[in-house]
């Protein structure tokens, strides 16, 4: 019970983070809701093995990104889900009210990147250092820097 309370607290504190991940990796609002649920479910499943050896945010990023990649394989999976109207994923409505034109442009630019780049740019925008990005993604710190350089070029060419 105590563990459950602790978990709820963590999820509530990081709901925005999960929302941003789902926004980048989902194809539609419904898909985003499905992915959001799956991330929370996977976080819950791994919560018992989480031993505070890494920062909570690092653990959440890792599980969320892995779940998002696994979710790409499950486009056709449809099963029992919490009905949409009961979901926090009314949270996706945030996007409708908050997103101004610039935010939509931002998400569209990120969505056009490939899956390697999406993960790296997300962590960069979240203010992670190259070393932190490296530890979450498994790339070397130098490689993260090189890739960010390429992403920058790609974004500039997308705009032009």
């Amino acid at each position: 019970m105590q563990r459950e309370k602790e978990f709820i607290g963590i999820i509530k504190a990081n709901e925005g983070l999960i929302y941003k991940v789902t926004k980048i990796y989902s194809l539609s609002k419904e898909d985003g809701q499905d992915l959001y649920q799956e991330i929370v479910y996977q976080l819950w499943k791994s919560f018992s093995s989480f031993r505070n050896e890494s920062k909570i945010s690092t653990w959440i990023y890792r599980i969320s990104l892995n779940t998002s990649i696994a979710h790409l394989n499950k486009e056709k999976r449809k099963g029992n889900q919490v009905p949409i109207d009961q979901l926090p994923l009314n949270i996706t409505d945030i996007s409708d009210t908050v997103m101004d034109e610039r935010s939509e442009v931002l998400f569209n630019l990120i969505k056009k990147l490939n899956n390697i780049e999406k993960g790296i740019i997300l962590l960069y925008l979240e203010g992670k250092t190259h070393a932190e990005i490296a530890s979450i993604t498994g790339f070397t710190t130098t490689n993260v820097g090189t890739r960010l350089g390429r992403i920058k070029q790609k974004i500039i060419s997308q705009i032009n």
Partner: protein
Amino acid sequence: MELEEMKTLWEELSIEIEKQKKLTDSLVIKMTRADYRNKISKILIPEAIGALACLAEIIFILINFQKLNTAYLLVCGIISAFILFLMPLLSIKAIRKIRSINILNNNYKESLQEYSKGKIQFVFIQKLSFYLGSILILVILPVMGQLIGGIDFFKETRLWIWYATGFPFFYLFAKWVFKSYIKTTAEAENILKELMD
């Protein structure tokens, strides 16, 4: 938009999202209880039904094997049974591949590698199943004609002509079907190549 500009905009957006938090305790609990194993079973049920149907057909062919009284019908019977045995196995292999990403222990790079390799293998299995399914239609028709109706399609109908004239259409159809597969495989291969940089 430069990366720094994107970062500033992202920060503004994050602040807005933080202000609009909506999760409640009960919603979090509901999400942790969402039974995703049901999702798996929803995929497995049609697969299991398909596998049972294949098994029933294999048994039917084997029980009546002596009725296949010509060399070509025997060959068709053996090929049919073999494909009927192989197709459910391939299907299960494809599903297992879909579920292969180790979400709890992988890092992002490892997940992307597993995803891309899985995608390539999945496409390969789909292509193979398409060809096997097509061959099955060709070989099972005369077998069932003989076993159920006692008719040798090769002697009593113009089955060969249908096969011969149908082949070019099948070839074009297969080419069209595989167009998207080629793109998917190429994308996955590019990701794998890029991951090795």
